């Protein structure tokens, strides 16, 4: 555990009941290794460590805790702050139908998250969602969304293979006609460097102006999370992040890197394959997970 590693640092170096430049630097070397192993981006690690160092050097060690515990507390608090401080759920406010656009790399969990959001909106927020199938590329993607809709008893709008922008527009119109107050647009996975597909996403956005735009990211994503998120954010200005597959053992350091580089909050985490497996993002729980 990190606390033990840091306690060892203080034991090895002299003056073990006092925080000094030497033992802080040594401790932070251990922290750096831990954070990189947790998939936090190396640049984010650098910035985070610098912030923690400043706080640690100014700190007083309480008699009741070890210096290692003290540093871990500073690490934890700083990370919780960076991750957004506290859970903040979107309100889905706005004149209906409120649009939610899903986006992200291939296989990140968008379609499943679309189903999960539909369930959440209906059961927790007592809303009437419509799912719109804008992925016309992946074999049986529309079928997949239809099956999820059927499992939930939530309507799905699709036009089979067609123009995703037109499908989105027509889906929005269908929502109005069916009296649905929320529309979830599931889109195809795409590389942030695929300009044609990024333009398609921008066109969908311009056409239906969704008030929520969720970047769906896999918790096991490594260093590239930063470049991917930054491009999606620069081009689509997403409003929040959904971190999926958090029921695995990936430490999820990408959450810290993405938040730190885009400033956008992580809203939800996916905790399983079933449609009820969506939870609110908790910065303190995430901080503990990343710190290990």
């Amino acid at each position, binding site marked *: 555990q990190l606390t033990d590693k840091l306690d060892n640092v203080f034991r090895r170096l002299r003056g073990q009941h006092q925080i000094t430049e030497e033992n802080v630097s040594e401790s932070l070397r251990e922290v*750096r*290794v831990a954070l*990189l*192993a*947790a*998939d936090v981006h*190396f*640049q984010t690690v650098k910035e985070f460590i610098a912030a923690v160092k400043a706080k640690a050097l100014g700190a007083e060690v309480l008699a009741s805790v070890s210096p290692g515990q003290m540093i871990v507390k500073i690490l934890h608090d700083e990370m919780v702050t960076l991750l957004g401080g506290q859970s903040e759920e979107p309100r889905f406010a706005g004149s209906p139908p409120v649009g939610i656009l899903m986006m992200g*790399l*291939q*296989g*990140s*969990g968008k379609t499943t998250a679309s*189903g999960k959001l539909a369930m959440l909106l209906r059961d927790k927020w007592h809303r009437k969602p419509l799912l719109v199938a804008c992925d016309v*590329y*992946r*074999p*049986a*993607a529309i*079928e*997949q*969304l*239809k*099956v*999820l809709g059927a*499992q939930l008893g939530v309507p799905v709008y699709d036009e089979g293979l067609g123009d995703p922008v037109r499908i989105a527009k027509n889906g929005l119109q269908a929502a109005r006609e069916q009296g649905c107050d929320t529309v979830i647009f599931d889109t195809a996975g795409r*590389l*942030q*460097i695929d300009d044609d597909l990024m333009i398609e996403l921008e066109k969908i956005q311009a056409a239906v102006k969704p008030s929520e735009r969720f970047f769906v990211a*896999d918790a*096991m*994503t*490594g*260093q*590239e*999370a930063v*470049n*991917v998120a930054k491009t999606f954010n620069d081009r689509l200005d997403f409003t929040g992040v959904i971190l999926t*597959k958090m*029921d*695995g*053992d*990936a*430490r999820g*350091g*990408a959450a810290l890197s993405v938040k730190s580089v885009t400033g956008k909050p992580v809203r939800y985490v996916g905790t399983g*394959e079933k449609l009820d497996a969506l939870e609110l993002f908790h910065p303190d729980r995430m901080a503990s997970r990343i710190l290990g």
Partner: protein
Amino acid sequence: ALGKGRLTEDVLESLEEKLLAADIGIETAQAILEGVRKRARGGDVTPDQLLEWLAEEAKGLLPELPPASTLARHGSKPYVILFVGVNGAGKTTSVAKIAHRLVAEGNKVLLAACDTFRAGAIAQLETWAERAGVEIVRHQDGSDAAAVAFDAYAAAKARGHDVLLIDTAGRLHTKDNLMEELRKLVRVLRKHDPALPHETLLVIDGNTGQNALPQFRGFGSVTDLTGLIITKLDGTAKGGALLTLSREFGAPVRWIGVGEGLDDLIPFDREAFARGLFS
């Protein structure tokens, strides 16, 4: 570092960041830098020389394997290949790509739709079977995956297929019940022949960071992994976690996925991969 110069701490730090950015991980990165330091022997080096050495050190960590296309030139008929991996890694698409390749090499291929759980999974593989021009064995959604595998083998044998490709449901290696389901599938297959499956390919998403190691360990504990497929390297991720997988487990990587179409699969090439890490 612009011109020729000493391998200073600053230069080493920027090299380390280059390695980390490729998902190589801190320990393997430091091992590689140690190798580069030894080669420099305190002398002057150019940036080009450094990149050359980095690529050489990385390549040195990667296995030398017989070419992957010896896949189907195996005694057994049908030759059975099982595809496993975590959710969304690219298993189903990779099954389709391998099928396409095998057909081009003149094989009669059969697919087994053993993801009986996920919405639209069977329909997805059916579409690919059609596109690749191969037959598929499937049961109902929600049926027993092991039963599908058992039936598929019998069908492959009866119909004289050269290769049977088994697509399975995505599963996290941390889920004991799902890993047990995979063990059961293998056990049931072995009722036909204890040598089955002839190959088990672990499919790993190229965007994966350090979680690639627990994935390899987890799936490796269920069944012998004979090969790896690293997908989505047409994106900006470099797949550097493969170096640590090689270094720790001698992970036998066979194929690289570079897109979403049937042709988007290339045989793993140590040289190209090592260079690609630092491009």
